[in-house]
C-alpha cells in the first residue's frame, strides 16, 4: 500500500490490517486468522476491541494484550486502545479463518 493510499484507507481497515500483523506468541499464526478478535469499534481516535483467548489459562495473555496495545498505538490516528477480554462464545477451532487453519496445519497441528 502506498503512503497516500494508507492515509486514505479508513482507520478501521488499517486497524484490522495492523492486528493481522501481530502473531500469536506461541504459534505461527496472526491474531485475526486465529479468530481471537470478536469485535472492533473505532471512533474519535479510540479503538475498542473485544478479545478472547484460546484457553482461560492462556500463558501468553499478557503478551497478546501488550502487543495489541503497542501496535495499535503506533497507528496514526489512534490515541487510545480499550481492550475488553470476553469468553462468550468460547473460542474453538471453528473460529479460525481458512488462512489460519492452513498456517496451523503447516506447523503440525491438526485443526
Amino acid at each position: 500500500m502506498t503512503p497516500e493510499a494508507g492515509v486514505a484507507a479508513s482507520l478501521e481497515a488499517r486497524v484490522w490490517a495492523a492486528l493481522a500483523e501481530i502473531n500469536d506468541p506461541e504459534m505461527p499464526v496472526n491474531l485475526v486468522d486465529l479468530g481471537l478478535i470478536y469485535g472492533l469499534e473505532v471512533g474519535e481516535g479510540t479503538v475498542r476491541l473485544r478479545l478472547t483467548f484460546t484457553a482461560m489459562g492462556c500463558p501468553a495473555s499478557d503478551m497478546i494484550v501488550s502487543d495489541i496495545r503497542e501496535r495499535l498505538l503506533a497507528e496514526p490516528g489512534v490515541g487510545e486502545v480499550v481492550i475488553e477480554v470476553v469468553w462468550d462464545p468460547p473460542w474453538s477451532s471453528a473460529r479460525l479463518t481458512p488462512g489460519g487453519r492452513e498456517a496451523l496445519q503447516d506447523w503440525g497441528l491438526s485443526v
Partner: protein
Amino acid sequence: MEPANPGTFEALLKRGELIESASEMTPDYLRELKHTLIVSGDTELISAPAYYLAAKKAPSVNAFMTGIAIIQDELAHAHIAFHILEELGESQEALIFKRDPKAFRYPYAFDVPLETWTELVVANAMYDQAGFCLLGDIHEQCSYGPWKRGLVKVMAEENFHLRNGRNWSKRISQAGGAAKEELQRAVDWMFPLTVEWFGLPDNLKQHSAQLDYRLKGLTNDQLRQQWLSTVVPFMESIGIQVPAHKENGSYALDYPFPCTFDAGEKRWDFKDPCTWDDVLARWRARGPRNAEMVALFQESFSKFQVRT
C-alpha cells in the same frame, strides 16, 4: 543388532543424508548421539525444578501462569530427548529416576538457585537464549532425523520463553530504582555463568566427534559468539550493563575467562583468574541445588512404585 557397515554409514553422512534408525549407525555414532541427547534431556528436565523455585514468586496470576507454562514446555522438551533415548535402547526410568545426582549432565548454572521473579526472567532471557542457540544449531544441522524433526516445535516454544524474559527484563529496568538494581545484580552473576555454558574454548578442544558426526554444526566459540551477539545488544538496549563489548566484528569479554565463582554468594571474582581444570572440577562437584533438585523427582518415584 547388527552394527552398520562403517563404509555405508560414512557415505550416508558425507552425502548429507539423515540417519533414521539405530540399524544405520556405527557404535561410535550411537554412543555420541546418546551422550548429546542425555545432555539435552538433562538440561530441559532440571530447568523445571530450577525455574519452579522462582516461578512461585510471580508478581501476578498471569505471570505465574506464564512461568508454569514455561516449566511445562521444558518438561515436554525433556520428554522428546528421553523418548528418543528409549527408542535407542536406554531406559528412561534408569536415566531419570535411578541415576546419581552427580551423574546428570546439565549446565552448572542450574545448580545455583533462582530465588526471585527477576532471576527467573533473566534466566529466560539468557539461559533460554543459550538453549535456543544450541538447539537451533542441532535443529538445523543434526544428522539424526527423528531428533531434528522433534525440534520444530521446541524452537517455537523456546522463543516464547525468550519473549517472557525480554519483556519482563525491559519492564523491570523501566521501573528503575531498587527493581533495576536487582535486575543488574542478577545479570552480574548469571551472565558469566551462561558464557561458560558453551564449554571449553575451541583452542583447548582438540577434537569434536559431535561435529564430525554432524550432531551439531557450530563450535563452542561460534555458539558462544552467537549468544553474545543477541544478549549483549539486548541488555545494553534496556540500560543494563554486561561485561563484554564488540571488537573487530566479534564480542570480547571484559574479564578473565575463566575466573573464580562463589556459588553461595552468587559472586564472580574478576580479579582471580583460574584454569579450565578448576572450572571442570567445579562442574564435576556440582553446585548447591543439584542433589535437592534430583531428589524432588526421584523420591516420589520410589515412594509410589507398585511392587509385585
